């Protein structure tokens, strides 16, 4: 164990954020570069090296948190990186973007602030990149099998890396112009700078993974043909069908899905565009949906120069403490202030949008809402609480309802969907079509990056076993595993 009394003698301390007024003027990550390193080893020393490390269970990847906390405490970054990569292909993604269910499950969190596990993780991997510990891990020999991976989000990349390292030739097909999926065009730069993706892709290329961008399976290549071309296929195309808001006025200009709004902003950062065609500059912005994607819209709108940003949520404001039905070590729904919220804007809870009102040009100007009350799990409008708020740009961040059903992929493969619009699979992540597997949001429905990586790893085992008869690859999660809950 690192320090038997660390949790008694050291208080929790997290990464320092740059001042709001500074950071909203740029798109760089919000943290003060290098601010973690001086504190993080001592923070890792707060780990109690539990007999039952609930963090290790709370993490879908099964990250060996006590082990690398110990290494971080002892400042052995190379060994820490080795242990971290034992379960996580892309800790630089999770270390920045994961909501850290591990910290919710941390045993210290029963009665004290939990260990800053996510900060430790990101420090280890940043150190590892800086010191050159992250090197390509090509397989010692090739199996002669090829596997197509559809989608280059975290699930697809994880599956591809695992399969490549197991000796198979993995080819990743991405319909966008750049690799990374939601990581690339969904996550704003200020949450994760895209250089992290590029660096990891370079490692993967060096290991032998092949990448094909701007190829959409179903549209550009017939899925059946693809299946014939490869020994196996992994569908990791995400759950990209966005939930819509069919209320009067939805067709007005200036009302966009979050995934229409965020990508062009990221393209500006990539240098493809000078300004985003959907910019918040000088506008009253309303974000519908109180989740992480909503927060990403809020932060992006701030940086684009919005006059005001309002985020609407139909559910009541969550508590700041665990409620009885969300006991430790479950991952609770709590009120949290993300970096975007620190930067301003208003959050309105228990409201539902009734309709939009536009001007003579058909541009949206007002959003009409009404307060709601939850009755038997359903929102009920409260009469007399109607009001309108100015809205010149509205983004919808209301979640996703399953895999893309437009581009022909589903029909061409002939894969079955489950009742929630996800691709159905068995215990090995195999679909009903021989040799076709599914991983990530495409099979699970919208979820966290950490689940996507875990699924990619697990599906890779299913594929490896399908191809070779046995597999020594790890499978951290089963297709039906869910986070611990009451």
């Amino acid at each position, binding site marked *: 164990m690192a320090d038997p009394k660390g949790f008694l003698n050291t208080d929790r301390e997290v990464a320092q954020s740059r001042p709001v007024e500074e950071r909203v003027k740029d798109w760089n990550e919000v943290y003060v570069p290098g601010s973690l390193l001086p504190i993080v080893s001592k923070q890792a020393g707060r780990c109690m090296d539990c007999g039952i490390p609930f963090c290790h269970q709370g993490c879908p990847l099964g990250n060996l948190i006590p082990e690398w906390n110990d290494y971080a405490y*002892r400042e052995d970054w190379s060994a820490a990186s080795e242990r971290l990569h034992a379960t996580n292909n892309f800790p630089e993604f999770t270390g920045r973007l994961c909501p850290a269910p591990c910290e919710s499950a941390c045993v210290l969190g029963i009665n004290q602030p939990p260990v800053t596990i996510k900060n430790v993780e990101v420090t280890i991997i940043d150190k590892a990149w800086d010191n050159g510990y992250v090197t390509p891990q090509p397989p010692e020999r090739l199996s002669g099998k090829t596997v197509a991976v559809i989608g280059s989000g975290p699930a697809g990349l994880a599956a591809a890396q695992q399969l490549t390292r197991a000796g198979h030739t993995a080819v990743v097909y991405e319909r966008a112009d750049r690799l990374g999926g939601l990581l690339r065009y969904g996550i704003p730069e200020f949450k994760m700078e895209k250089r992290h993706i590029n660096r990891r892709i370079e490692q993967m290329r060096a290991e032998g993974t092949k990448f094909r961008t701007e190829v959409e399976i179903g549209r550009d290549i017939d899925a059946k043909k693809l299946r014939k071309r490869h020994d196996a296929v992994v569908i990791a195309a995400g759950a990209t069908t966005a939930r819509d808001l069919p209320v009067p006025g939805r067709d007005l200009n200036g009302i966009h899905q979050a995934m229409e709004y965020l990508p062009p902003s990221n393209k500006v950062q990539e240098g493809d565009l000078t300004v985003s065609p959907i910019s918040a500059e000088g506008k009253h912005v309303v974000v519908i949906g109180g989740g992480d994607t909503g927060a990403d819209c809020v932060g992006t709108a701030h940086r684009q120069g919005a006059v005001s940003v309002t985020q609407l949520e139909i559910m009541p404001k969550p508590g700041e403490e665990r409620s009885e039905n969300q006991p430790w070590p479950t991952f609770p729904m709590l009120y949290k202030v993300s970096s975007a919220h620190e930067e301003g804007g208003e959050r309105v809870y228990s409201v539902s949008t009734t309709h939009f009102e536009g001007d003579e040009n058909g541009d949206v100007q007002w959003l009409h809402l009404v307060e709601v009350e939850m009755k038997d799990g359903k929102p009920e409008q409260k009469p007399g609480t109607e009001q309108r708020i100015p809205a010149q740009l509205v983004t919808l961040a209301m979640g996703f309802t399953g895999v893309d059903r437009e581009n022909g992929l589903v029909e061409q493969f002939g894969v079955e969907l489950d009742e929630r619009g996800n691709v159905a699979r068995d215990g090995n992540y195999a679909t009903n079509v021989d040799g076709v597997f599914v991983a990530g949001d495409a099979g699970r429905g919208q979820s966290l990056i950490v689940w996507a990586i875990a699924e990619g790893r697990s599906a890779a085992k299913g594929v490896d076993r399908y191809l070779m008869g046995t597999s020594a690859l790890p499978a951290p999660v089963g297709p039906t595993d869910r986070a611990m809950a009451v």
Partner: protein
Amino acid sequence: MTLPFPVIDNDELAKLIHINADGDLPGFKSTTLSGLYRVHEGGRGLSERIKEVCAEADAAIEAGARLIVLSDRHSDAEHAPIPSLLLTSAVHHHLIRTKQRTQVGLLIEAGDVREVHHVALLIGYGAAAVNPYLAMETVEDLVRDGTFLPGDMPAEDAIRNLIKALGKGVLKVMSKMGISTVASYRGAQVFEAVGLDESFVDTYFHGTTTKIGGAGLDVVAKEVAARHAKAYPVTGITAAHRALEIGGEYQWRREGEPHLFDPDTVFRLQHSTRARRYDIFKQYTQRVDEQSERLMTLRGLFQLKDERPSVPIEEVEPVSEIVKRFSTGAMSYGSISQEAHETLAIAMNQLGGKSNTGEGGEDAVRLYDPARRSAIKQVASGRFGVTSEYLVNSDDIQIKMAQGAKPGEGGQLPGPKVYPWVARTRHSTPGVGLISPPPHHDIYSIEDLAQLIHDLKNANPQARIHVKLVSEVGVGTVAAGVSKAHADVVLISGHDGGTGASPLTSLKHAGGPWELGLAETQQTLLLNGLRDRIVVQTDGQLKTGRDVVVAALLGAEEFGFATAPLVVSGCIMMRVCHLDTCPVGIATQNPVLRERYNGKAEFVVNYFQFIAEEVRELLAELGFRSLDEAIGHAELLDVSRAVDHWKAQGLDLEPLLHVPDLPDGAVMHQVTEQDHGLAKALDVELIKLSADALSADSGQDAQPVRGQLAIRNINRTVGTMLGHEVTKKFGGAGLPDDTIDITFTGSAGQSFGAFLPRGVTLRLEGDANDYVGKGLSGGRLVVRPDRGADHLAEFSTIAGNTLAYGATGGEMFLRGKVGERFCVRNSGALVVSEGVGDHGCEYMTGGAAVVLGETGRNFGAGMSGGTAYVVDLDPDNVNAGLRDAVHGHEDLDDEDKAWLHDVVRRHHQETGSTVAEALLADWDTALTRFGKVIPATYKAVLAAKDAAERAGLSESETHEKMMEAAING
């Protein structure tokens, strides 16, 4: 050839191998045999290779070899190492069979040796010395790495440390098995196999007990092959970032060994009992029972037969009846916090079950609080806080013969955990570590145990006397002895219980599953007609209603739970119980951490009610209306369902389920009481005689009682029942000194004056047997020779062995020499004698011993407190660990001198001792003959206390100073 240590490094091994390199020592010729086999040939290849090695050994001996090295070095993609234990034992037994064993020594060069238990096994199966080369190389690598070991530490030092730790660990194993020399331990085979095939054991581990059959050579070969395949994968591709497996033997990991308590079960257990949700509780038990089936426990392999018609659940006895059979484990106040300890007590008292004090005494406030008291008072080898008052206020008294998790070992409370409040209930000193001796110093035979049972029964005739045993081969015979020794309850404790404070070797490798011990106990008791008079209890990781029902069918009528109710109280299996850093305030005394405790008695109540509810459901299915009906019906356990795991196929569990042929009407559970013979005790007369004192309303009003009686050695435990009456009436303070003052003439039986409380003085003119003043609790005992005797008393023995064992207060004046183990674990009494045998003042923690004569060997071993004054002390007789505690007469201060004078004067006055008289006659000279033994830490603590009190500090400040002094020595 003599080796100083059974674990040797590479140089030492090389020396042994090459000892005859020049040909000048042909008597020590060595041969190295390769312990590798062709892994793809499986079990057959393994068996053939073992045969070959045996033949090679024969040839080597024929050729004059006297040292045979069995080596598993140089394995490669085709050759895997034979497990070193299998190889060693196979060769060892082959050589015994062929009568060549004494001609050679076996040296083991093995890569699979890394833990104490591995070395302990190898030596126990015949190895002369073990060279754990891979473990040493690993240590070397760790040094080179510098992360866990200081980089400037020479690798040789680190290796030395490893070797020392492995070797000393074996010593510890030997000590708990009661074996003193490696020579006696080597080949002693003090092991029991669980789950190994009989013919396999007979061939390679001849003489080892294996009761339930199990895996054989093929399974071993399969496991070797699986490990080998990890190093040499078939695909030729090694996994990135996964050089070594993560493990998970001692701490749960997702990819490691399964544990019954994992995040899921802990979470569901805690949440269900906190929210009182039986539905979630059922999820918990279902998961535990399922995992149990996956070979984690023997009970997991049983199915409940449904051959009897089930009964409606309404007809089954209620939860409130079932919970009375439940008790919580013996966890001491000290090892766990007051909050945690009281939670369990309050819950059990609410339920009508029983909580257990553990080996730490009980705070006086709790003794009399019906809500917070513990019904079961434990009496363990340390006898901490075992006073008359403690025993009188018990419902059950439990003699801990051994502890399931660490049989053969005593508990140990490190100094920093001995906070003032803990020290108070243990009658010890804050900050000074406490060691429970491995054995009870008053039990060396079953007769001694019977005596202790009798003593305790006298100390509280209303209490049931338990004897706690550990499940192992032969426990049935011991249990039968315990029943004959008139215990009211026998507890069969399983191996997998245990705390995070147990040594890892014990936690994993000592003791057996309760299923085996319980079945054996039940069968033995039934066959000997002893079952009807004794209650059988079992414990050891009971977690679910199913566990309880299986235990009942195997013969248990009461059930103990420890880990589960602690988990309910908030324990999350941190396994740092020994560090005082328990983050949930359970296994700690640190006030900051105790604040964080969030357990509540109602959660524990919920737990036991849920368990009982589940028991009811299962009883209904089985067709029983009460647990009493179910007890002993082992025939309802089904093992026929094929065990589908490849490792379980050879198991034969039928012997566990045997129900002896019994005459009609024979009962399978307790129906009658033991006859303790108390009605015939001399104390019946003493109590009558003391009526005037006992009938008083308060101690102050008690009329003095004087009497004179004859005594014979059939009068055992004299004064103890009288003491019980005094304590029951007047509490722990007893009566004013000498209120009851009775003189006996004759020869007293054993345990004269045991647990005697204050206010009772027993004088014996004659002599006494063993255990005089055992557990003395404030009373006074004077033993002097018969007034008509004409021998020189100081040269004669006046009383036997083990006097004042576990005494907590009072005085004893013994005119003459006494036996061995004098004043062991004394924590408060003053005892004067005129010579003592070996092992005097062992494990003493307080009080004073004055020896006006010779001492035997090993004086003061493990002594951590108290003071001994000895005339003409020979320092060589003092235990080596205590040399710095010995002081000459020049270190006696005025206070010492005045105190000593008073004690010697009173010894003379009480006993007419001529020795005392002579010392007093020339006191100044006499003083120069006294030596003083006082443990250094204890001395420092007392000095700090004195200083603090002189400075006028408050009680808590004083305690702080004392703790500080203890930690700084």
